[in-house]
C-alpha cells in the first residue's frame, strides 16, 4: 500500500525494524547480520516506471542485478564499496565509492534502497543535460552547500587518482591531482573567488564540446 510516491514500509516491517532498533539500543554490540534478516521491498513496478524514465523491462533487469548482490533490498556503504572496488582491481576505489554513496543516498540515512538507486540512475542516464550536470555538481559538492571549494575538489581528485593505483604510465606524481585541480578551477572559476558555484559550473560545461559529448556517452548503458 503506497501513496503519492512515499517510500512506504508496510506496518509489519516497520514493527520489525523498530524491534531491531530497540534491540540495538539495549545491546549495541548486535552485528549487522541481525539487520540483514529484515527484507526491504521496493514500491511497485508501475510507480517506479512513472518516477523514472526506465521501461518495465529495464527496471526488471536492474532489480534482478540489484537483488542478486543485496538480497536484503538495501545497500549499505560497505557493500557499495566492495561492489565498486571489483571494477577497479588495480587501485583503491573506496574514497570515490564513498562520495558516490553520499550522492546516491539522497535521504541521508546511510543506506541506498532500490528506489534511490534507480532514481539516481535515471537522472544520470536519461535525464537532460542540465540534470546530469546538476548531479555531477552534487557529487563534487561534498557538504552540499551549493559551491565547490578547492578542498572538496582536491578530495574528489585524489579519490579519482587513487583508483588508478600504483602501476601507471607515466609515474604518478604526488602533485598530479593538485595540478589537475588547479586546471579545473582555472577553467571553471569565472570570478576567481576560489569557489565554483552551480551557475559557473553549468556555464563552463555547456561551452565545452568535450564535456558535452562525454555526458551523452553512457546513455545506452542499460
Amino acid at each position, binding site marked *: 500500500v503506497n501513496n503519492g510516491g512515499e517510500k512506504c514500509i508496510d506496518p509489519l516491517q516497520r514493527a520489525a525494524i523498530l524491534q531491531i532498533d530497540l534491540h540495538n539500543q539495549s545491546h549495541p554490540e548486535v552485528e549487522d547480520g541481525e539487520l540483514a534478516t529484515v527484507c526491504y521491498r521496493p514500491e511497485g513496478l508501475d510507480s517506479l516506471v512513472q518516477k523514472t524514465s526506465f521501461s518495465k523491462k529495464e527496471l526488471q533487469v536492474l532489480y534482478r542485478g540489484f537483488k542478486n548482490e543485496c538480497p536484503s533490498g538495501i545497500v549499505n556503504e560497505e557493500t557499495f564499496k566492495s561492489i565498486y572496488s571489483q571494477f577497479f582491481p588495480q587501485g583503491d576505489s573506496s574514497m570515490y565509492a564513498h562520495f558516490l554513496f553520499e550522492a546516491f543516498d539522497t535521504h541521508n540515512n546511510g543506506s541506498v534502497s532500490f528506489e534511490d538507486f534507480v532514481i539516481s540512475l535515471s537522472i544520470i542516464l536519461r535525464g537532460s543535460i542540465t540534470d546530469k550536470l546538476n548531479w555531477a555538481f552534487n557529487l563534487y559538492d561534498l557538504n552540499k552547500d551549493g559551491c565547490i571549494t578547492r578542498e572538496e575538489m582536491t578530495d574528489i581528485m585524489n579519490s579519482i587518482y587513487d583508483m588508478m593505483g600504483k602501476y601507471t604510465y607515466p609515474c*604518478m606524481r604526488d602533485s598530479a591531482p593538485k595540478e589537475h585541480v588547479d586546471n579545473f578551477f582555472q577553467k571553471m572559476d569565472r570570478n576567481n573567488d576560489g569557489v565554483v558555484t552551480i551557475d559557473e559550473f553549468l556555464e563552463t560545461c555547456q561551452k565545452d564540446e568535450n564535456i558535452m559529448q562525454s555526458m551523452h556517452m553512457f546513455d545506452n548503458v542499460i
Partner: protein
Amino acid sequence: MAAGVAAWLPFARAAAIGWMPVASTPMPTPPQDKRKAQDGLIILNVSGTKFQTWRTTLERYPDTLLGSTERDFFFHEETNEYFFDRDPDIFRHILNFYRTGKLHYPRQECISAYDEELAFFGIIPEIIGDCCYEEYKDRRRENAERLQDDEEMDMNNDVTPVNLTFREYLWRAFENPHTSTLALVFYYVTGFFIAISVMANVVETVPCGTLPNRSKEISCGDRYALAFFCLDTACVMIFTVEYLLRLIAAPSRYKFMKSVMSVIDVVAIMPYYIGLVMTDNDQVSGAFVTLRVFRVFRIFKFSRHSAGLRILGYTLKSCASELGFLLFSLTMAIIIFATVMFYAEKGSSASKFTSIPAAFWYTIVTMTTLGYGDMVPKTIVGKVFGSICSLSGVLVIALPVPVIVSNFSRIYHQSQRAEKRRAQRKTRLARIRAAKIRGTNAYMRYKQNGLLIDSLEEEAGQALVGKAATPPFESQHHHLLHCLEKTTNHEFVDEQTFQANCMEISVMNKSGSRTSSLSSSPHGLSSCCSRRHRKKSSFSLPSTNNQELSTIQIRERPVANSRSSLNAKLDETVPLKCDEPYITPSMVSLSAPVVTSSDGDSSTTTAYSQSNIVRVSAL
C-alpha cells in the same frame, strides 16, 4: 571478478559521469552493442530434469560449454531445449556457479565423477569457492594417492629394468632388499651380525668363572679376549664394508652422510678403529672404556630392519616439544622440592641431604613413586614436604602421560592439516593475484587490440572489424577503465613495465639536467617517482612482515593453546615461553628477501621454508 557484479556494470559506467567534467581530454568511444541483449529463458534438459535460466546468466562465462556456441551442438529441435545426457545432481551445482559466481563441491559426490562433469562443461576446478576448496583438494589428493599406490604396486611386481647403472642398482638393492636374492641375503647377514655383535658386547661382561691361581672372578671378555676380539673385528669389517658400499651407491653422498642412519653406522664402528689407533696407555684407557659404550649403538642399526622402530623414532622426534615440556616442568618441580627438602632437613643430624643437588636424587625417586629408601627425611617438616612431593609427583607424572599420548596423534594430525592449509593459502593468494593480473592483462590486450583494429580500419576498411570476439561485458568494462585513464591522463601498466620505467627515469635524471617543467615539483621526477615507489614499498614492507608474522603466529596459536592448557593444570607459576623470541630470529632473515623483491610469492615461500624451524623451536 564475480559474475554477480556483472549486473552492476551499468551502474559503474553511469557513475563514471562524475569524471566527465574534470577530464581534460576527450573520452574514447564506447563499444557498440551489436545486438540488443535479448534476455530470453533457456531450457536445459539434463537427463530428464529440466533447468531453466536466463540466457545472459549462462553467457557470463563465455569460455565454458554453456556460455559459448558449443551448447548449440546439444540443441534439441523437436522440443526446443538443450538436452544433456549427464548427471542432473551434479549439474545443479554447475548451474549454480553461473548464477552466483561461486562453484561449490558437494561432499557426498564422488570426486572423479565431479571432475568429469566439470571437464565436460569446460569449467576449471580452480574456481571452486573457498568454502569448498580445501575439501575438494583433500579428496583429490586422496584419490591421486590411491591411484599412485595402485601404480606402485604394479611397478613393484614388474621385472627390474635392465638399464640401471651399477650404482643405481646397488642403491636400490640396499633400500629395498626384496628386489633381488643377493640383496635379501645381504640384509639378513647384516642383521645377523648386528645381533651377534650386540650379544657379544653383553656376554663379555658376564663373570665367567675364576682363573686357577686367582681368587677374583673375571669376565668372559677378559678370559676369552682373543675370541671376542676376533668376533668384534669380523662384525666391524662387515659394517664398514656395508657403510662404504652405501656411501658409494648413494645418489647424493652429502645427503646420505647427513642422514641419521649413516650417523648411527659411523658411531657404531668408530670405537673399534679408535681403539686400534690408541695404545694401551693409562691416561687414555679411561676414554677408551667410554668409547666401548658407544658400541651399544649398534643396536640402533636394527631400525633399518624394523619399520616399527623407525615409526617410533619419528613419533618421538615430532613430539620432542611435548616431551621437552614435560622434562622442563619436572626439572622445575625437582628443583623446588629439593630446595625445600634440603632446608627442611638441614637441622637434623646425620642427614643424607648434604646439598641441594644431593636432594635431587631423593626428589626424583619420590616423584616417580620409586621410593628406594636410601634417602628418607627425618624431621617432621621434612616428612610433610616429602609427602607433598610424592603426591605432586603422581600428578606431575601420571596426568600428562595420557595427555601426551593423545597429543601425539592430535598434534600430528593438526600439523598435517595446518601445513595443508598453509600450502593452500599460498595457492589461494596466488590465485587471487593471478585473477587480478589476468584482469589487467586482458585490459592491456584490449587496448592493443583496439589500436590494432583502429590501424586495420584505416587500411582495410570495415571488413576486418568485428573479428574481436570479446564478450560485451568485457569490452564495456575495458571501455570504463579506458575512460578513467583519459580522465587522469595516466595509463594502467603492469608491474614489470612500471619498475622498468622507474629505473629508466631515475637513470635518465641522474645524467640529464632538470627541465623547467620539473622545477614545479619540489623534488624532481626521479625522486618523486622513486619516493612514491619507495614510500609504497616501505608501506608494503611492514605489512608483508605483519602478514608473515601473523601467518606464523596463527599457525602456532593452536599448538600454543594446547600447551597453555597443559600449563594451567600443572602449575600456575610456570611461565609459558612466548612465541615472539622464537619468531624474531626467523623474522630477521625474512626481512632481507622482502626488501629486495616485492613479489608476494617469494616472501611467502621463505616463510614456508622457515616455518619448520619455527615450529620445532617454539617451546
